[in-house]
């Protein structure tokens, strides 16, 4: 705005033109910065992981325990997941991130993200997890076809997901219709 006096002697219309020019330039710059600040795929996925819990009917969490969102295998999120869960809670249970190495370690988890690093052992892992009523999430391809519950599908600069409803039902979890509505695909048979 310090440049305004330059146009001042040209009359009001020139002045308005100058203001409009400055403002549009500023907006353009803001747009650029917003683009550069666009969240990464994993940031989005971490955010999704913190939200999924809200659209599932869970068995009650024992008092004093945290609501664990776990990562099995190589963690692609790092601090992003902790940041996404920070300060959030389901019911009375505060949410917390946890990294596990084996399916057995995931016994206390509610949501388990299976890293692509474990895609080779996926069948074995899913079998091991079958008795535990936890929500499985992964970005491994064909995850839902192979018995996983929620599979991330990067689509352009967005991240979408598909759901295997019967897998969730087998684990004793009821997914909210709201969640199903935004899924790209909902599989109802194994």
């Amino acid at each position: 705005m310090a440049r305004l006096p330059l146009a001042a002697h040209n009359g009001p219309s020139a002045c308005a033109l100058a203001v409009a020019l400055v403002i549009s330039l500023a907006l353009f710059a803001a747009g650029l910065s917003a683009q550069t600040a666009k969240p990464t795929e994993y940031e989005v996925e971490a955010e999704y992981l913190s939200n999924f819990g809200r659209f599932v009917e869970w068995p009650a969490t024992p008092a004093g325990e945290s609501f664990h969102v776990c990562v099995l295998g190589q963690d692609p999120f790092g601090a992003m997941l902790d940041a996404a869960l920070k300060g959030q809670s389901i019911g009375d249970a505060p949410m917390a991130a946890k990294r596990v190495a084996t399916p057995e370690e995931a016994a206390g988890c509610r949501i388990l993200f299976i890293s692509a690093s474990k895609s080779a052992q996926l069948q074995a892992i899913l079998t091991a997890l079958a008795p535990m009523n936890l929500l499985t999430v992964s970005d491994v391809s064909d995850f839902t076809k192979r018995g996983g519950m929620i599979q991330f599908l990067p689509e352009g600069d967005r991240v979408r997901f598909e759901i295997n409803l019967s897998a969730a039902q087998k684990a004793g979890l009821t997914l909210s219709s709201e969640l199903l509505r935004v899924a790209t695909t909902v599989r109802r048979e194994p």
Partner: protein
Amino acid sequence: MPGIRPYSIRQKLTWMNMLVSGAALLLACMALAGYELADFRQTLERRLSTQAQIVGTSSVTALLFNDPAAARNTLSALRAAPNVMSAAIYTAAGVVFAVYSRDGRGGGVPGQAVTPAGTEEHRFTSDQLILTRAIGFQGKNIGTVRIQSDLHEFNDRLLRYTGIVGMVLAASLLAAFLLSSVFQKATARPIMQLAETARVVSREKKYSVRAPVTGNADEIAVLITAFNEMLEQIQERDTALQAAHNELEASVERRTAQLEAVNRELESFTYSVAHDLRAPLRHIQGFAEALREDCANTLDPTALGYVSRVVDSTRRMDQLINDLLGLAQVGRQEMHFRPIELKNLVEDVAREVAEECPGRNIQWHIGELPVVDGDPGLIQLALYNLLSNAVKYTSPRDPAIIDVGTKRDDGERVIFVRDNGVGFNMKYAHKLFGVFERLHRREDFEGTGVGLATVQRIIHKHSGRIWAEAEIDRGATFLFTLEPRA
């Protein structure tokens, strides 16, 4: 009231009724409609708020999981609400996330909108209601919903109310008009009839009319009764006055008749006396003259002187009787009105009078004189008396000057005879026209004292007046009026 033209009371009452009921009704209708419209505005707000709330809640997952299609799907449910023109969902950052518009073009939706968490605000423009509401989830602000509704419904209702108010007003005014026409029979009509009666009374002076009495006991009835009583009193007084007047007239007529009878008797008495006195007087005169002429040799001078005096006295008495007979004649004679050229007549009479006294130096100044209506014989007699009077009392003057003319006195035409004679004292002016009244000694001026009485009688018989102005030794003026020729 100063602003209202002189309409009749009936029109004023009608206008008053219509204005009062119209104003009251208009106020009531406007208040009611205003309340209804305010209420309806609130209803619109609440409805839009509810819609925004539903849309917001249904868009939570779409926003959380970045699914604009789902959000659009949610928004498209607004198609069921016909008043919603457009709607949009924005992300928490204020960027457009999903848009719905009735016309399918997304017009009128701003690119950015941010609403503070947990708030809702609405704004009315001339034809729109715009409501923005924050979408919250687990205490976090995750976006904004903005719904833009047109105000067709509101405007339709406004139009409908206006129509209803207009119709109610028209119908009510018509009803008020009809009702007031009915009620005017009770209020305005008696007043109008009273006014009509008052007009008749004042215009035709007819006090026998009465204003029709109403069966009510209100102030108008009191007014009508009082008015009628007043008329009654006036009528009574009028009748009494008329009776008194008639009585007076009759009594005047009676008196006049009596007086006329007495007057006639008196006149015939005078006439008979005068007439009957003549015969013995002739004898006295005849024998006295015979005595003087036939026995002049036998009578001594003293006796002859006495006889001469008797002769003179009898001659004077004869003159007196003649004059009296003339005066009586004037009273008894029938009048024959004719136009008279007064100037000619005066000139004739003046000549005659002048001939009777040769040797006198008399200057006559006879001015313009009118033509009058009168009895020529009587007018001539009056003029003769006036002119000979003037000649007589100017006898000491040389020359004697006698003026006859007219002048205006208070707009009235007055004929005068002015002389430069001896005049008289105005103290005795009232005696001037009395019979046998003389202001001068017989030794100085001859006369019987009947002449001016005769003149006055003649002028009075012509509905005129006569009077005189004089000063001793400075002449006298006799003035009289005569009705102009009709």
